[in-house]
């Protein structure tokens, strides 16, 4: 084929071949930027919130609960929060909300969030979701997208009720804060 004799095309084919090789090596790790950014932000959220109830201090592990599995949270398990190792739990019938220190409601198709918020009010649980109206429903941190960048809003009132002290690092960067 004449086209293969063109030097420019040969170089391009090399570049495509190179890219194909790298694609094959990473094909098992199919996660998108949005999930990684949200996971990293949630890591900062749990870092800058204090759980003020006494029972929290006696725990060896910090339980991060997810509504559905997301591999982008796996690096959490290599980190510590307030000298506690982070453990990932899937929020299902086996996992009680009372065993969660933080919950990320990452199933946008699920309508369970109202039920989960209601149940979590009895415990000291940081609730996080992308659902519109999450704060008004009593959730603590609501995520949003503003022109391709992550933003978040905080319900201080709900945090206070759950004996959670939200740090100034979060309050200063939040887009909206529902005051006490």
């Amino acid at each position, binding site marked *: 084929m004449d086209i293969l004799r063109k030097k420019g095309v040969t170089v391009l084919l090399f*570049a495509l071949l190179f890219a194909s090789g790298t694609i094959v090596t990473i094909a098992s790790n*199919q996660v998108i*930027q949005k999930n990684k950014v949200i996971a990293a932000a949630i890591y900062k959220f749990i870092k800058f919130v204090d759980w003020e109830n006494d029972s929290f201090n006696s725990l060896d592990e910090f339980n991060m609960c997810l509504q559905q599995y997301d591999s982008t949270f796996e690096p959490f398990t290599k980190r510590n929060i307030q000298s506690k190792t982070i453990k990932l739990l899937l929020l299902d019938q086996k996992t009680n909300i009372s065993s969660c220190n933080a919950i990320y409601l990452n199933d946008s198709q699920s309508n369970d969030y109202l039920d989960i918020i209601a149940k979590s009010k009895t415990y000291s649980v940081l609730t996080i979701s992308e659902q519109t109206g999450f704060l008004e429903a009593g959730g603590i941190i609501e995520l949003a997208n503003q022109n391709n960048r992550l933003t978040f809003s905080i319900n201080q009132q709900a945090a206070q009720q759950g004996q959670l002290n939200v740090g100034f690092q979060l309050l200063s960067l939040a887009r909206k804060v529902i005051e006490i």
Partner: protein
Amino acid sequence: MREPRAGKFVWISSIFLSVTISAIASDEEENFLDQSLKQILAIPLDVNAVNILESHIHKKEEWMVGYRFMYMGMNGNREGERQVSNAEVLEDYMVAPTSMSMEMHMGSVMYAPSDDLTFMAMMPYQKVAMEHVTRMGEKFTTKSQGIGDLKLMANFAAYRTRWDEHIFSIKAGLSIPTGAIDERDDTPMGRDQKLPYSMQLGSGTYDFLPGISYAGLTTDWGWGAQMLGTIRTGKNDEHYRLGDKLDGSLWISRIWDNWVSSSIRMNGQWWGDIHGADPELNQNLAPTANPELRGGARLDMLLSVELYAPTGDLKGQHVGFEIGLPVYQSLDGPQLETDWTISAGWQWTF
């Protein structure tokens, strides 16, 4: 056909940047956790599915500079959908074009004064070379090079869903005639002859550039469509107006990770014949000088790979490679047919 030295430099530079981006990508997941919350909030949520055709909208006060190298190879003539030999062309004309190469270096700048509006300016530098054969069997090459027409565009996000899963945008632009329309070169017919329409670097007219685009996104896939028109106005100083043009694209991208995606794109183009005529060109000498043999339609299939550095020293850098082959073309000919196109681009957002 020899590829110019500048072209080789572009390819080598692009590949070097790709290798560097690939090397740093594996470490970036841990880097996300180590960044400050402020830095995390500044990372684009989606980076790979939105760069096709520069159709993306930027964040308020964000700048982007870019450079794209494009090369198009044309060989042989076509009349309608049928390929025609040089001998057939020479039955009606003294000179037949046999091949043409077009090299374009495109610089672009984008700025977003608000979250929903992005302004863009694009300035091309073109090099065109056309080979010919005469009835007497003599072969000769003509060349032209210089800046093309400056394009100013505005891209407005008319509708977008909460996480930008669906974005509809409206485009409006103006092409300013900065490219020459009086390029000349030596030919067997004489020294310093006016070159035909396809070798001129600009349109010579102010042209409106309306367009609409849609982009969709899921976890692993991106897709979209774009229509862009070119509506010519008036007549240029050489007494003609190029035909209007319609350009439509449909694409689908596979997002492999936050630093790499690959895409397949179908691009259809329709362009009309020239209105009026340059009185210096002899329409009976060569089909390239006949204003009624300039229109056509073409459908290309293009494959591309795009790489992006979300963090690290190369943060915000984006490179892409694309190769295109026509799957259909019908030309008001005899007119040179397109054989293949390649392009490589670099963008830096800050």
